């Protein structure tokens, strides 16, 4: 009797995701799919609202990366108020936004590594799930857990100081920013928040280096797993500066194929619709983006830390650059297509974000008062940035009454839809195919592959008691053979 295994929702993945693996009577995999319930109602929700509300409204989409939506919306509205397409803000406006963004990147990457990935690395993906979690890390590796908490807190405090609030911040406004950074705030971040030297920027940089050392040590001991697990060739897309540097806040769109050939040649983000389209498939609520020049079958691509380190030529901060050189040398300068190397790339970006925060905190422009610029009003604007999980697209059209008439978003996790399906398929074929019994470790193996992408499914509603893990086994007729809930 043919079988179908359903994992719903995927543990430690935000929102509602479901993995379906179909098996025939001989336990051979016949199909594997990741179904994600993507929330699309927001694009209708903002229609008719005054455009200047958008940077605040968009944060209601998601409690995980509200700052990314806040800044992407603000960037799109910069265009509409005539403040240029990324380089027209005052130095204080742009640098305050960058500080906010690097704070967001830092705390998000830290959460992913310490909370979600370190249990797999420290205990093994086949370890008892009762200890393979952040509480287990706290019990066995307390210093590491404390570091994770303090690093996360540091990033959150940067966000609060720049956005005004930890949630529903108002810092970025069309054409600039509504506050600068006070001397007192600056000194606290440099010397230590609340006088605690463990909450200083120097400590953040040192701990970021230590996290990289932890990963590299694990990599050295588990090369086969890290280099081959869920690995597959793909295209890669991200923003870079016009001269090829990693830039998480602004740049041109660059794409490379699995071998390093440029397939998207540093295009202006305002022209993204000429280069990127989304395919709808009947079995998934989430769309599948692709590069129009290659079509849906060959044009899908990865975004996020791995893609960013594959598309850029260098990193403009010294410590991260040193690690980047090692990262690139590992594949002989060619793109790195090893899915588990997302973790390596993410930690290099964590270090880069800490270095960028240090540079910005020591920049006197952050204490200046020239915060906003305006220019000739435009009818449309596009704002792209590199969110923690990858390229985030915001596009708005506004009428003569200042009301939003059109909104189009392509969120980072949507960009990684096809790659995550590829990863699930790899795991199904390589670890589950032919097995008579599906163990918890195998199921976690599927999740390990998905988690590499750090997907965020933008649910942001969580009412207590509604987050179980259910595993259901059904036959080809849809009858439930077995069901587990934990």
């Amino acid at each position, binding site marked *: 009797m043919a079988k179908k295994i359903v994992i719903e929702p995927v543990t430690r993945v935000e929102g509602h995701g479901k993995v379906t693996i179909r098996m025939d009577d001989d336990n051979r995999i016949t199909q594997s799919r990741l179904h994600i319930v993507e929330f699309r109602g927001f694009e209708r*929700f903002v229609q008719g609202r005054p455009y200047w509300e958008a940077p605040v409204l968009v944060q*209601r989409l998601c409690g995980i990366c509200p700052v990314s939506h806040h800044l992407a919306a603000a960037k799109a509205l910069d265009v509409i108020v005539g403040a240029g397409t990324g380089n027209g803000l005052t130095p204080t406006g742009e640098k305050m936004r960058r500080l906010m963004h690097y704070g967001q990147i830092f705390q998000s990457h830290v959460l992913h590594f310490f909370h979600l990935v370190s249990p797999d690395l420290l205990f093994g993906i086949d370890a008892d799930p*009762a200890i393979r979690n952040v*509480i287990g890390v706290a019990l066995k590796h307390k210093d590491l857990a404390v570091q994770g908490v*303090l690093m996360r807190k540091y990033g959150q405090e940067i966000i609060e100081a720049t956005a005004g609030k930890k949630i529903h911040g108002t810092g970025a406004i069309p054409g600039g920013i509504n506050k600068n950074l006070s001397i007192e705030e600056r000194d606290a971040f440099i010397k230590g928040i609340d006088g605690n030297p463990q909450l200083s920027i120097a400590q953040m940089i040192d701990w970021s280096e230590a996290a990289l050392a932890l990963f590299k040590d694990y990599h050295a001991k588990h090369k086969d797993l890290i280099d081959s697990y869920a690995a597959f060739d793909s295209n890669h897309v991200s923003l870079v500066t016009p001269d090829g540097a990693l830039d998480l806040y602004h740049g041109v769109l660059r794409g490379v194929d699995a071998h390093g050939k440029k397939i998207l040649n540093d295009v202006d983000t305002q022209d993204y619709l000429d280069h990127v389209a989304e395919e709808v498939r009947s079995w998934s609520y989430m769309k599948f983006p692709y590069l129009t020049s290659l079509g849906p079958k060959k044009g899908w691509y990865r975004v996020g830390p791995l893609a960013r380190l594959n598309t850029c030529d260098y990193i403009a901060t010294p410590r991260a650059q040193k690690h980047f050189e090692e990262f690139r040398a590992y594949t002989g300068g060619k793109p790195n297509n090893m899915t588990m190397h997302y973790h390596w790339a993410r930690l290099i970006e964590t270090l880069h974000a800490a270095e960028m925060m240090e540079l910005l905190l020591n920049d006197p422009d952050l204490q200046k008062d020239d915060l906003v610029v305006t220019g000739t009003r435009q009818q449309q604007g596009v704002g792209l940035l590199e969110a923690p999980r990858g390229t985030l697209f915001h596009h708005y059209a506004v009428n003569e009454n200042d009301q939003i008439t059109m909104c189009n978003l392509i969120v980072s996790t949507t960009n990684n839809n096809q790659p995550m399906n590829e990863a699930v398929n790899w795991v199904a074929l390589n670890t589950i195919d032919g097995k008579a019994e599906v163990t918890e470790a195998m199921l976690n193996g599927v999740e390990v592959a998905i988690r590499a992408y750090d997907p965020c499914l933008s649910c942001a509603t969580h*009412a207590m*008691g509604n987050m179980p893990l259910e595993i259901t086994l059904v036959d080809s007729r849809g009858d439930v053979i077995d069901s587990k809930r934990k």
Partner: protein
Amino acid sequence: MTVKENSPAPEYSILLYGIGNPARGDDALGTGLERYVAHQRFPGVDTECNYQLNVEDALTISRYDIVVFADATHSDIEGARLSRLQPSAGLSFTTHAMAPSHVLSLCRELYRRSPAAYVLEMQGWEWELGSDLTPRARENLAAACRICDRLFRDPSPQTFAQLAQLS
């Protein structure tokens, strides 16, 4: 820090932590209660709110004697329900959020502190983006406000224990 600190704590330091997305219908129950409590300025009672709990909240709650997590629930309860919370080291089921019992457990393991913790649940029904609280949820919020009035006007462990048994 976003913790809104009111007048100096008298005998017990207390934190009311509202959880939820204020833009998603009845998911705003937790943050709605947080706003009410902050507005009352009960002596010694601080408030905090966020979409969801996370690891850094272990540090936040470690500074208090008593912590009340206020949240919406799907459970079928009448009005609002106060329950004593115990640490739990079980799995966390979502990527970027933690259950109150897990935050309590993390607090105990990392900071050797175990504040007396409670959950104040209010039933909700609708979770759509942009929608307001449903009328029934408003009634539950009002019930939770009345519980907070009794808890925080003259706070003591006995009051908390008594109300946790009654509700």
